[in-house]
């Protein structure tokens, strides 16, 4: 009897498992150490903690950092490229940027060696006309040469293939005949969008990941099946939607930011259930603070990202802004007497000084420990017995206190002040870049460390409330269970609105819909509903930055009704006015790309099933001295998961649970809502 839906998020340190029993509506969580190099060990271990009989599982959804790690650590397959004559160096030339503005240092190694980038005669022009047909014999001999050189994956990268894929399609057919495995990518299949470097880079990185990711997912699926799993395995994409495992094996580049995306999806759902439509999330890890914005329940997608210098991935992904201020970020005083945090980080290994694993420079976590905000006797994660407060104090003295003329406690407070200020800056900037006033948002910390800093974020940014989810440490795994199935498509159109061929546009829309629906229907998952959405990237002629323009399209029996020019113009004017305030007189409107999304809405579960059941009035489990501002305060410590609904706790207080510490500063209060979330606000409620 299949009754469980399981979300699994594999992180650097822990593998989190979230189990939803669809029959009873109840959920449970497990946290086990991540296994390396093969993550499937920890994955299965985590599931077995909660479920004995794997045949009772209908769906396993996986948020994975395997793709991100393979890119960052450059552990993809040896990959070859077959490209247009004259263009073998596009991947290496990038967009003529440099790693850092100042200093002019550093070089760049593309993921495909120049020896394995081979040119063949062929050329398509920008209008889609074929100037030279592709020389298929040249493609054959190039393929053979790449195989001889030991390439495991290959990519076809032809100029202007977005405008007419004929040459690429012919070449990739020949290549697939010869190539001994399925690890072949063609640029028009991966990203039929104008801009050769971005398209080539995304396609080459896809090929580079194919052997690694399909191998990993294959092992995972085999292991699940051999344990009796009969359901469906799905993978979270960077856009926050899920895809079937075979799509993931073909398009692994879409998993580049799979892990963090699931967390943002869950954050949005938790906040929405609790009545917050507008939130800014903050995920504080060992090395970074990741901020994302959800407006009216919708997360924001950005069209591309750089995984590292020169490694551009252009696929829609949940926009996450990262600054180097995590728990492991190192605090230091520069020669000019200014206190800095990061960018250097001790990460989670060796980690803060107090871990005693070899780092002797103070981190943000060390400041939290010295000030009593983290319990040195019960370190989170259970790897260490206790934390070394003396060592942390000494490091803060040497590296911050003495150079700046501050006492240990002043120096520790200073480290937090500067770190909080930088984190608050990131929160303000993500709002402003989107034209929103961050004060209209609630702040949701998740991940291990964020909830220690939630109060400070309120004070710094003027945001009125923070909402700490009941299980902040397993947010990403929960997001796996919540995420919808979503496929994104893009096609460059490149026309003026006045010369738009509506029938051609509708044909592209129809093709996207057909492909998307076919993928939904191939899935064994039940969907509550389906959604289609179409956007045009548009601008006035002469402008290079486009505005996304939502086009309302009707379908009858699955057939797209073509939009007309007037409809497109009106939609552009509305979107442009909303972005820039006013329209341009006599401006000529242009369409660059069509973007379509096909979404299957998965059934949602009621978060109330996770709500506290305890009725016993809250009582502190301990008292501890914690330093705030200039003084030590007697601070009550509570077991967070045991607090009943509607409990109100005045700061200073600390709420503990196995993987998180929630800090309620003096003058703030924490309120347990009906889902077990903690709402932090000014005492007496926010104004």
């Amino acid at each position, binding site marked *: 009897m299949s009754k469980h839906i399981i979300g699994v998020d594999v992180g650097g340190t822990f593998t989190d498992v979230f189990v939803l029993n669809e029959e009873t509506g109840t959920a449970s969580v497990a946290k086990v150490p991540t296994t390396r190099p093969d993550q499937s060990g920890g994955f299965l271990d985590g599931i077995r903690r909660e479920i004995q009989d794997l045949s009772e599982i209908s769906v396993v959804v996986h948020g994975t950092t395997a793709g991100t790690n393979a890119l960052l650590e450059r552990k993809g397959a040896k990959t070859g490229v077959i490209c247009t004559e*004259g*263009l*073998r*160096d*596009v991947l*290496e*030339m990038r*967009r*003529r*940027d*440099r*790693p850092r*503005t*100042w*200093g*002019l*240092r*550093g*070089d*760049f190694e593309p993921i495909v*060696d*120049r*020896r394995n980038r081979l040119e063949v005669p062929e*050329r398509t*022009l*920008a209008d889609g006309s074929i*100037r030279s047909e592709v020389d298929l014999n040249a493609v054959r001999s190039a393929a053979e040469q790449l195989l001889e050189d030991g390439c495991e994956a290959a990519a076809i990268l032809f*100029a*202007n293939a977005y*405008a007419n894929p004929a040459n690429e399609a012919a070449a990739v057919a020949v290549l697939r005949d010869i190539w001994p495995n399925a690890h072949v990518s063609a640029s028009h299949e991966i990203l039929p969008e*104008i*801009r*050769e*470097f*971005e398209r080539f880079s995304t396609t080459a990185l896809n090929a580079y990941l194919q052997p690694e990711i399909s191998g990993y997912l294959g092992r995972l699926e085999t292991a699940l099946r051999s344990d009796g799993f009969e359901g469906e395995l799905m993978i979270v994409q960077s856009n926050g939607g899920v895809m079937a495992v075979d799509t993931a094996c073909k398009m692994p580049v879409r998993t580049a930011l799979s892990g963090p995306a699931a967390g943002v999806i869950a954050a949005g759902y938790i906040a929405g259930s609790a009545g917050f439509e507008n939130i800014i999330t903050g995920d504080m890890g060992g090395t970074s603070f990741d901020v994302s914005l959800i407006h009216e329940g919708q997360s924001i997608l950005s069209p591309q990202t750089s995984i590292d210098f020169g490694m551009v991935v252009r696929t829609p992904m949940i926009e996450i802004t990262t600054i180097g201020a995590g728990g492991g970020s190192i605090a230091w005083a*520069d*020669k*000019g*007497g*200014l*206190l*800095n945090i990061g960018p250097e980080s001790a990460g989670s290994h060796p980690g803060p000084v107090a871990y005693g694993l070899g780092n002797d420079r103070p981190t943000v976590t060390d400041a939290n420990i010295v000030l009593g905000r983290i319990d040195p006797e019960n370190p989170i994660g259970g790897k260490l017995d206790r934390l070394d407060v003396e060592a942390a104090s000494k490091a803060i003295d040497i590296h911050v206190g003495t150079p*700046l003329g*501050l006492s240990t406690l002043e120096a520790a*407070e*200073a480290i937090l*002040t500067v770190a909080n*200020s*930088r984190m608050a*800056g990131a929160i303000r*900037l993500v709002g*402003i*870049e989107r034209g929103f006033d961050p004060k209209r948002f609630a702040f949701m910390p998740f991940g291990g460390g964020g909830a220690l800093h939630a109060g400070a974020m309120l004070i710094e940014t003027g945001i009125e409330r923070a909402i700490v989810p009941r299980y902040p440490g397993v947010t990403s795994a929960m997001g796996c269970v919540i995420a919808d199935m979503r496929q994104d498509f893009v096609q460059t159109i*490149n026309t003026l609105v006045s010369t738009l061929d509506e029938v051609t546009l509708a044909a592209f829309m129809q093709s996207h819909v057909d492909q998307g629906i076919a993928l939904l229907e191939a899935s064994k998952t039940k969907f509550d509903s389906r959604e289609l959405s179409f956007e045009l990237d548009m601008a006035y002629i*002469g*402008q*290079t*930055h486009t505005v996304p323009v939502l086009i309302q399209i009707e379908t009858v029996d699955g057939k797209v009704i073509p939009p007309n020019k007037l409809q497109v113009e009106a939609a552009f004017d509305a979107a442009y006015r909303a972005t820039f305030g006013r329209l*341009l007189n*006599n401006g000529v409107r242009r369409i660059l790309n069509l973007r379509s999304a096909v979404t299957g809405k998965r059934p949602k579960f009621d978060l109330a099933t996770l709500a506290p059941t305890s009725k016993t009035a809250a009582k502190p489990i301990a008292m501890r001295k914690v330093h705030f501002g200039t003084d030590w305060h007697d601070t009550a410590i509570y077991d967070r998961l045991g607090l009943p609904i509607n409990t109100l706790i005045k700061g200073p207080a600390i709420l503990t649970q196995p993987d998180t510490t929630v800090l309620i500063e003096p003058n703030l209060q924490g309120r347990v809502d009906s889902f077990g979330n903690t709402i932090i606000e000014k005492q007496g409620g926010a104004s």
Partner: protein
Amino acid sequence: MTEIDPITLSVLAGRMEQIADEMDATLFRAAFNPIIAEAHDASHGLYHAATGDTLVQGKSGLPIFVGVMSFAVQAVIEKAAKDGGLADGDIYIFNDAHIGGTHLSDMRLVRPYYRDGKLFCYLASVGHWHDVGGAVPGNYNPAATDVFQEAFVLPPVKLARGGEVNQDIIDILLRNTRLPQSALGDLNGQLGALDLGIKRMDELLDDYGAETVSAALDALGHRAESLMRSELQELPDGRWEAEDFLDNDGITDKPLPIKVALEIANDKMTLDFTGSAAQCAGPVNIALPTSVATAYVAVKHIFPALPANAGVMRPINVIVPEGSMLSAKFPAPTGGYTETILRMIDVVFSAFAKAAPTRVVANAYGTINALSIAGKRSNGQPWVMFSFYGGGHGGSVETDGLNHGNAPISTATIPPMEILEAAYPVMFRTWGLRPDSAGHGAHRGGVGAVYEIEVLEENGAEAFLFGERGRFAPKGIADGADGAMNLFAYQQDDSWMTPPLASKMRGIKLRQGQAVRLETPGGGGYGPQAERAREAIARDVQRGLVSEKAADQAYGTAWREVTS
């Protein structure tokens, strides 16, 4: 003066930097022309109320503006004094390069910020407009002999008085550009950025009070100065010289020397450009503000961790001789200022390498290569494809130089080939790396690029190039070798021709099917060739970035014994 604690100072430094960054972001998003929107050829910052010194500047704008903007503010301070003072809501606008530095394409807006009726600081915005009139579309006129042939010249004038924008000024501006729509879009973007800056300053001063912020600004200046002094103290005292040349001024084919003497004495440094060429006829002159700003850019590259604050320059004395091409007088043409300042940076690096070779990188490719191809389509519509092209960066003590990078004075990215091909009737036959262009050395320079562009339009086209390094190669340092020179060629009938002035030419007539070919310089090498790892040599050869012959000549044949 209010004393300020180091923690508040750290917080305020971050808040103010963010204000400048937000102003940058606002203009990039709203700008019409790709030079601002994509290449980020713009900048914003906060400047001192009395001196115009740079207090804080955005991180994403163009590096050269980091030093030059304070001159724009100083020019406005002087002009406002003559105009009878300033009021809240006034905004000055101008592009005069002899007053504010750089070239006429850069439109500068300066706005005083008042708090409680008192001038607190200035906010300024600069952006490179697509076209400001003159003889050549896009304003890179290699044959200009005065500013009037380059563009219209606007001295500092009040665009707004007390918050009221003077439409007359806008009308004059828009009548003097080939692209009025683009100009208006950019102007609105710059005004929007200044509005945002004012709003953010209000919020900051509400939070912290004018006195505290003011004290923080002073403290940041002192801090920048003491950081610079402590860096200089770590370096050996002494005097080192370097000289390099520009090919010509675009008018007469005569090399123009650029010279620097670098002197370090305890915690002070002098950069003396005495001995550089006299003011010339062509557009490679630069005004004094540009020279001082360039010294600042070179210093920032050598000490990348220092803040963008005028305090950094207090221990540095920049000497620019009167009458030289580095302090040219109105109306000398300055349109090609990029080439001259790139050479100034090169000589500063070369001189510095003699003092402390590990602290600098070898010369980068050293030319902006402004290439425009223009014509008329069959329907009579004119088109202009204008872009800058990349080259190799210099090697350093850590690594080889970057292949195909952007110029040290810029962070601009190149437009995608497919965007250019979709917008203009051209086809790139080659968009590739240029083998054998890197300067050899223990760490070789980055390789340059080859761009070969064919005209597809049946009416043909005309090409214009403003480049350099056609006669003098980018220099290696610490015994590293020089990179390859710039090579430009164009097809005429059945043969390839090269310009008489190497890398500068206007009005090259091209028929349909003919092409131009630009081969850009590689960067200079770092360290002796004998110290290059044999594996690295073999790898370069197998990758085709260095030919076997060149490898043998530069490194001997020992590399043939290893496989990479």
